[in-house]
């Protein structure tokens, strides 16, 4: 069973703290404080290939990439290129894309009995 949210990162890129903050803000906005975020460091090219890691940061929600990369994107230890909704290049996903992905991919909250 995959972690509900897994943030894959490579320490050679300084962008994952911002993405972690954006994820926490989005979860709070959606009222999903029940969701845990697991941080996983990718340290080798072999790990990157094994995890289909195309760059740091990569956000997996219920095992699916929050912002799916282009087909055939090579894996590796690198900073990941995202495009913001205004078209600008960015080292982090657009927070609006994160919110949309959370709505789309997260399982519904468990009902209290």
């Amino acid at each position, binding site marked *: 069973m995959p972690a509900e949210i897994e943030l894959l990162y490579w320490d*050679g*890129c*300084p*962008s994952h703290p911002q993405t972690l903050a954006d994820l926490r803000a989005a979860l709070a906005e959606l009222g999903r404080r029940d969701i845990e975020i697991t941080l996983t460091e990718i340290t080798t090219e072999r790990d990157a290939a094994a995890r289909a890691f195309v760059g740091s940061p990569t956000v997996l929600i219920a095992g699916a990439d929050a912002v799916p990369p282009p087909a055939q994107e090579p894996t*590796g230890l*690198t*900073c*990941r*290129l*995202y495009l*913001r909704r205004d078209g*600008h*290049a*960015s*080292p982090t996903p657009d927070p609006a894309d994160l919110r949309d992905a959370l709505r789309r991919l997260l399982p519904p909250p468990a009902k209290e009995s």
Partner: protein
Amino acid sequence: MPFAIGALAPSFILPDTYGNQTPLRDAGDAVTVVVFTCNHCPYALAWHDRLQAVARDYGPRGVRVLQINSNDAARYPRDSPEAMSDRVAAGEFSSPYLHDATQEVAHAWGAAVTPDVYVLDRDGRLAYHGAPDADHHDSSLGAQWLRDALDAVLDARPVALAETEPVGCSIKWRF
């Protein structure tokens, strides 16, 4: 470690994307901006247009801007000389884009990330080192730290903020 503010910059001659051997110091006493950058890094791409605008705006004031790619193209094919030439041919650069294939220049300058920005005064001494401005996400900042440094150097004033923390992707060294 980068060389210190006020120190003479290490000299170099590097090829541009047309094969022209390009020296650090060309027109004698020009104020010079050196930017270590690359093709694949999202930080370099986020700041790219702001840096090209600086090259366009300050060129008529006698400022020379040199952009250098030092990344290992074997590990990062998007930083290959061919990919550099493609970007230049597409009109993405407002000043020469140089290839530091041996990475000796990046090592000599202590460059660590892309983008990493250096301003040299008319004597070739370091007057500013750091990021273009405070936020790669905010294009309205317009590389203001770099512009402030250039304005000061061109007016022969001390640079008020001579050092900032460069932010970006690590330079991809050869193993």
